[in-house]
């Protein structure tokens, strides 16, 4: 298992963002669904080792990130796309991706080829020399994806990766996710249930800091049978689970 989480909590003052999450995930694309404020981003930030948990246990890629050495090793094999992607406007796409490849301590000799491949995989080849300040929101999102996958991560954490992508790019991105999920654990946090249906092999639904559903997209769809809210079967399942959890 690449992700082993037990009783994980995170508090921000009086607010408990994550309230005892248990989760295990191996290779594949894992969808993390939930309404705003459900705790998805906090959970992903803890998995990205940038936010220490308040309590609970977490093992990532067979290591506990609490101590420096294992955490550094995890980070070398980690790809992370935060919800709000920051960037350096004066950097070009190549420079930005290379910068993070170097921060991920990739061997210097491998960096140029890895950067070129990541940029191609994110379909940014024709914008490789463009300054980031000149790119649209969707393209910046793809730059974020490129920096996340540049080190060919074993654990890839994507927070709202398809936000800002046009429909064509979204379809292409789902294909990329499926490809990455063949060998790595990809955790995708999203509001868009169609992304989950198209790309994820497993899905968890969070509400109020807890996981209230865990299963395959088909199982989530089945939960929605007979439920009236939602345009698509998966949406009806999502709504049904949330309604049940809130009641």
């Amino acid at each position, binding site marked *: 298992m690449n992700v082993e989480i037990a009783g994980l909590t995170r508090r921000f003052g009086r607010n408990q963002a994550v309230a005892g999450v248990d989760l295990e995930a191996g290779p594949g694309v894992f969808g993390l669904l939930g309404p705003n404020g459900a705790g998805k981003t906090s959970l992903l*930030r803890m998995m*990205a*080792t*940038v936010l220490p948990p308040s309590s609970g246990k977490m093992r990532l890629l067979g290591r506990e990130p609490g101590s*420096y*050495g294992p955490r*550094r*090793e995890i*980070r*070398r*094999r*980690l790809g*992370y796309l*935060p919800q*709000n*992607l*920051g*960037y*350096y*406007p*004066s*950097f070009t796409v190549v*420079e930005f991706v*290379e*910068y*993070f490849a*170097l*921060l*991920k*301590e*990739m*061997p*210097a*000799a*491998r*960096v140029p080829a890895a950067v070129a*491949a990541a940029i*191609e*995989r*994110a*379909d940014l*080849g024709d914008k490789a020399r463009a300054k980031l300040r000149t790119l649209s929101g969707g393209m910046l999102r793809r730059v974020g994806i490129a*920096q996340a996958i540049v*080190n*060919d991560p*074993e654990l890839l954490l994507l927070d709202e990766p398809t936000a800002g992508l046009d429909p064509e*790019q979204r379809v*292409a*991105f789902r*294909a*990329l996710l499926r*490809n990455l999920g*063949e*060998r790595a654990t990809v955790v995708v946090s999203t509001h868009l249930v169609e992304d989950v249906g198209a790309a994820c092999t497993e899905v968890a639904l969070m509400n109020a800091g807890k996981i209230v559903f865990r299963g395959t997209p088909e199982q989530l769809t089945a939960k929605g049978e007979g439920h009236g809210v939602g345009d698509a079967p998966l949406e009806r399942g999502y709504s049904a689970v949330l309604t049940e959890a809130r009641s």
Partner: protein
Amino acid sequence: MTLTDALARPRPRDAGHASPMSLWRLLWLELRRNAMPWMFPLLAALFVFDAFRSAMGYGPFWDLRASALENKLLPDFVAFVAGVAAWMGSRDSRRRTRDLVDATARPRWTAQLTTWAATTLWVAAGFLCCVAVLYGVTASQATWGGPPWWPVAVCLAELALMSALGFAVGTFFPSRFTAPLAAVGAFLLSLEGFRNAVGRSSAYALLSPTTYVPDDDTGLFHHYLPDVSIAQLMFLIGLTMVALAILGLRRAADAGPQLRRAAAVIAVAGLAAAGTAIGLIGTARTQAYGTVIPALHDAANDRPIPYTPVCSQAAGVPVCVHPAYRNFLPDVTAALAPVLREIASLPGAPARVDQVVVNDLIPSNGAAITGVPPVFRLPMPATPDETSFGQNAVSFTSYLQATLVTVFVVGAHGFVTLGPVGGTPAQQAVVLALLQKARTATQTGSGPGNGSHTKADQVAAAARRFAALPATTRHAWLAAHLATLRAGDITLAQLP
């Protein structure tokens, strides 16, 4: 290859390492995208209109020109350095990339150090370009010596410190206002704040590079004393190490044990260096040719610099100057010649003029007539032009003539700055008369500087009367009465 046809690639199972090549590549990226080069046009303008113009106000003497580095160029740079460093230090917070950077394997401290290093390297490059221009122009004009490097090293150390402080401030207090506030703060701190904090007259004020100014003759007659520069370097580098180490210690949990230890060692070493410098500067004492710190002082620097003077016979007696003043020799000779002719063959008239080092510790600055045959020892002030007295010809000629006449008639004690203000009324009258005869009735400082208006009028009247005498009569009277006049035993009424 696109998103849809992405091919599986072999997974790298080897963990990466912080190789020097990676660090160099990281530094290269930071250098390419650093904000500092955007400041260069403004810094270049400041250099041309401030530091360079000020330096060119001095003659082509290396140490004087170099003093503009610490007193002009450094304050010009400091504000920009601190501001840009603060801007770069706050970058990850301003650009919301902290999570991205924190999720990477490389310790945040090393990433920060590369950003700081890139900023500092650009600053150093810009500063050294200005130094190259200043020294290049000076090299084309100077006739003696070579460029002093201690001030350059001290300035670079101060810039590195300001860069580190600005970067640390930007990291700790990230906001869009941090950079301008850091710039203003650094400017005030480097120019006035530090000196006011420790006391302007305190020896500790010497720790600020903008405080210490070498003597006019440094590098000509005597060596540049590096004692203060060494203490300044220790102080500035020590504080830089502390500032950078604090960045590492701040995120100790993320740094790992090795880097934590390294940061702690750097902090302690920096504190030790700065503390030692403070202790050393407290023992500094001013000597005739510079400030000495006993523990750092090299006695070899006390030996005068040997040189072969450059001489002219155009004034009737040899007039010799330091080779650094070679281009000024015609002007010096022309200034002294009328006075030398006027006093020729009188008892004690100089048979030679030798330039000597300026000694600020005595009123005459070192001017005297001594030896047998008598030699007029002339301390030259720093000339403001490149190859001649130029637009300052009147004041410089007056200064040289007044110095010679005053020292000849009154003695070294009668000379204070620009003209005869000492001596008895009769001595003053004779000095004035001789200066008038040398056609240099000076506009500034040549009149009696003490006593009442009535007495001054009496001195001026006596001077006019004495100057109006035929040259032979005046000369004969001086030949007969000069010893008595010098002894102060002749009154105004006794002057012919």
